[in-house]
């Protein structure tokens, strides 16, 4: 059984339907936004961390119920939108049995960065593999530079703190 929910497919269906229903008179002046949401294991997240990238990758750990996380998300999206050298990825700590909480959030808040739900509650097994500096509180953010080196930050940031953090890492 495949638990992965792919929004690309859903979007294609919606767009096709829109066209069939004669809504093609709408001019789509920007390319349709393809939202990515997947439920992943810790092993899959490790592979993601170990991938090579020319960009500064920013993994933000959050959950829909976490008020400070939700508050800081737009700052991350803004900073990523303004800087082509940054690749932003949201890692949800939400309940893997209720992915609709996350997909509804993505729709409602129009989250643009890819979102992955890390579905492994045996936290003590993997928190230190992300960073030994992480107590486990969220929000938390892992920065991985193009050379593979990591910088970890636990706690909420505002926009200027985030910019300063990134400037310091670069």
């Amino acid at each position, binding site marked *: 059984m495949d638990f992965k929910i792919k929004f690309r497919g859903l979007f294609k269906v919606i767009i096709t339907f829109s066209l069939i229903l004669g809504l093609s008179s709408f001019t789509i002046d920007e390319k349709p936004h393809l939202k990515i949401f997947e439920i992943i294991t810790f092993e899959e997240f490790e592979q993601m961390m170990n991938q090579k990238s020319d960009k500064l990758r920013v993994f933000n750990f959050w959950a829909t119920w976490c008020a400070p996380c939700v508050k800081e998300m737009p700052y991350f999206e803004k900073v990523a939108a303004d800087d082509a050298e940054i690749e932003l990825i949201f890692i949800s700590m939400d309940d893997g049995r209720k992915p609709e909480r996350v997909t509804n959030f993505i729709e409602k808040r129009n989250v643009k960065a890819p979102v992955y739900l890390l579905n492994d509650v045996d936290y003590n097994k993997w928190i230190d593999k992300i960073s030994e500096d992480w107590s486990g509180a*969220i929000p938390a953010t892992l920065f991985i530079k193009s050379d593979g080196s990591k910088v970890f930050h636990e706690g909420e940031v505002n926009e200027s703190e985030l910019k300063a953090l990134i400037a310091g890492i670069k």
Partner: protein
Amino acid sequence: MKKLSNTLLALMFMFALTPLVNAQTQGYQVGDKATDFNLKSVDESWVSLAGINGAKGAIVIFSCNTCPYVVAYEDRMIDLHNKYAAKGYPVIAINSNDDKVSPGDSFEKMQERAKEKGFPFPYVYDKSQDIIKAYGGSRTPHVYLLNKEGNDFVVKYIGAIDNNYQDASAVTEKYVEDAMDALLSGNKIAQETTKAIGCTIKWTKAD
């Protein structure tokens, strides 16, 4: 110019985050002596470690009303108290969240939650956040198992309750129970610290 602004930003960042870094690096390690406290519980009584009759220690849990992980663990917190209070190790739940930042964590809301769930243990409010800062708690739920040695309360275990918040029946490692049972039988605690994802503490904002 870019370099200058980067340097300025980096400096701003260092100033902005200095208090956060300090808050995270302080606190107890296993083996440290924990401070006592005198905090008001939901039944309006004042609770201290020294004031608990017959206590050989305590299972101190930094908790709150609003965190889904806490909600998932409330029944297991009750079970821990019912299992170990009679053996001298009651649960003491401490809410340290600022009720201006998180109105759902006010003392009145604590009283409501304690009544709804019928908490058999004290549920106290650390409004000043002095106690959580002394202990080094960073999230909810965050357990500090204390053992009374002479007049001191010594930290024996710090971390999570077990390894599956979602489903108590799927737990394979009962960290707190294992630590308690080792302590009661005079054995060494195998796993003295664990980590878990939890809700961040709602720290009081400096005006």
